[in-house]
């Protein structure tokens, strides 16, 4: 009986967590609050957003109020998202958070949040309030990948080169353009779209289709807002996450694969148009095109562009080396992999697990070629 009660308790607790909206507004009275260690709130959440009251400058007092509004709107929009949560830190009237920017980063890390949000409020010339928001991806969501295979002609027969073109998310901060505070609803759309993507992009998620569809709807809702017409950077990011979501959906819904991939390609192309200086859209488009049977000659220029725009990215260099090896540029591929090695040491990044395998294979092929 006891065991049954315990099981029921666990089951109901789980259901409670899954079905209710998880959000808390924390009033910070102690000025040393952020210097102390605190328990992780909603430790089960894996699409957690930590937000802070907006710093308000002269003539504006609504920073705390707007943060509360955003909190409530986000909370409403993540209804039904398992693992979604929001924590909003506020101070009482007359108080403010010291070392604001540093504190935001520290608190988000301490709370093991996936996203952090902070910003400022300003009065414009007519006295209306403007809001300036920054979104940090403390722990970026999963990107997409496509299997890549090519064959190199050798005297002893063809040698296969296999690997994955990976989309590593390098855009870890989105600076929204300053907007009127009435646009908070559009921001909540963007943020909730991101939260749904975080969850939907997880391979093990059984509700991925539903979550990704919601992510697409929310991000599209942001795009439809006039706000995105002027904010190229954020609009590009919204298009890019939609492209990723469609790409994952294409794998999950085989009957709609063609349509999803077509959508994914269209959104990724638009993301490039909106922000041609961001490397991630080029990689995403390369992944999509690789999966839709484009030739290596068509994919390589996209990956080369990604390398040019993200010279410190191991993944971008690895992707290009992999594809270049498929176009017969063995020397270039070997040199590029050596560069990945160099980047790993310089950036003190964890070992790139595919690197050694591909490096050995290419060196063997190269030496075989030279011998014959």
């Amino acid at each position: 009986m006891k065991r049954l009660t315990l099981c029921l308790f666990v089951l109901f607790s789980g259901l409670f967590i899954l079905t209710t909206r998880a959000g808390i507004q924390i009033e910070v009275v102690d000025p040393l609050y952020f210097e102390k260690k605190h328990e992780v709130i909603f430790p089960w959440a894996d699409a957690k957003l930590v937000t802070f009251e907006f710093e308000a400058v002269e003539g504006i007092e609504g920073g705390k109020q707007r943060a509360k509004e955003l909190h409530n709107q986000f909370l409403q929009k993540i209804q039904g998202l398992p693992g979604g949560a929001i924590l909003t830190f506020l101070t009482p009237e007359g108080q403010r958070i010291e070392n604001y920017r540093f504190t935001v980063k520290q608190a988000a890390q301490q709370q093991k949040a996936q996203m952090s949000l902070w910003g400022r409020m300003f009065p414009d010339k007519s006295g209306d309030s403007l809001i300036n928001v920054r979104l940090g991806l403390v722990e970026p969501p999963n990107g997409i990948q496509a299997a890549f295979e090519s064959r190199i002609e050798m005297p002893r027969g063809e040698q296969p080169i296999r690997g994955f073109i990976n989309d590593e998310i390098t855009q870890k901060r989105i600076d929204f353009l300053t907007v009127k505070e009435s646009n908070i609803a559009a921001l909540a759309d963007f943020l909730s779209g991101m939260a749904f993507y975080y969850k939907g992009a997880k391979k093990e998620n059984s509700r991925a289709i539903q979550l990704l569809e919601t992510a697409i709807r929310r991000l599209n809702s942001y795009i439809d807002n006039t706000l995105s017409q002027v904010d190229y950077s954020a609009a590009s990011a919204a298009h890019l996450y939609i492209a990723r979501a469609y790409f994952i959906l294409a794998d999950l819904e085989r009957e709609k694969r063609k349509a999803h991939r077509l959508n994914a390609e269209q959104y990724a192309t638009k993301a490039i148009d909106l922000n041609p200086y961001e490397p991630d859209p080029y990689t995403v488009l390369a992944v999509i095109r690789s999966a839709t049977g484009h030739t290596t000659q068509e994919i390589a220029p996209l990956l080369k562009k990604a390398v040019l725009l993200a010279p410190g990215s191991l993944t971008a260099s690895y992707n290009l080396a992999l594809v270049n090896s498929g176009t017969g540029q063995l020397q270039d591929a070997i040199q590029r992999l050596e560069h990945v090695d160099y980047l790993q040491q310089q950036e003190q990044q964890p070992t790139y697990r595919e690197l050694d395998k591909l490096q050995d294979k290419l060196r063997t092929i190269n030496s075989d070629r030279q011998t014959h």
Partner: protein
Amino acid sequence: MESTDEFWGFLDRMPLLLQQYSTHSYVLLALLGIAGAILLAWHLFKLKSSGEGLSKLMFAAGGMLLFLSISGAILKISSELGEQQQGKENIARFLEDNRVDSDEHWVIIVDFTNPVASPDTESEVNTQDKMRLFVAGIKEVLLEDIPEDFSQPRIKLLPTKDSPWNKGIDDNNYDEVIDKLNGDELMWGVIHKESLNGKAFLAISAQLGNTAGHDLGRQAPLHDLDLNSDLRREFQFDRDGYSRLIGMVMLGMALETVQRAEQIQGEGRRKEFLRASKQLTAMRKKVSGARDDPILKRTVYSSQVDELIRKSELEAEGRQ
């Protein structure tokens, strides 16, 4: 006895007279000196020709005029030399006090409210406070929004008191200011004293600009300023002003990294070029929303910077 007293009285007044003469213009001093010399010459001529010179009073007047004008001129010259020397010392002290160290990237902001040495009216104090707030606002924007690939720039407010450029900064002398103060970038502006509205400009030093070639645009008008409003808002909200400010500062910093990398031989060279290429690409990414701005097209998105990125990336990949 009475005449002795008068003589001492006259001697007492002499310094005052000399002081008074030293304030006259050189032309007046020359005229007075000539007049004195003519009187003395006339006296000598009459003495030689008729054995009787001018009256004692005329003779004394001629002698005094000559003496006072020569002494006045000497005093005037020495005082001017002293002032020049003092001016040079003040300028040297000003430059010494305001020269920045070369280890960091410095953006020098010239106080364009042109304040008086000791503000005595409430409005002057108020204006200076606004200028300080403006500098704090610029600093906040830069520290907040410059990507992590960059170190943080240093900001300095340059006073105008004792400044060799207290008549103002313009296209003709901004390079001299940057050069003499060892800065990397300079912001200056012009504001209307009453309305506190004006314009601000930002320029990268010629020394840094040359890294990307002589044709690189180095100067950007920032934004119409209104010192009465919150400048953080001005720079955050006006996309062109904000992008130009942040873009130009990042460009200056990236050029500095390229220059440093070029000077390194051996192991550290590749690493520094990697840093430079990351900075150059991060810079373009950051202000990509304003990529069609004509000023940014001549600077951040110029073909010279394209070439610099290509070169830095080749060096970073160990291919050059």
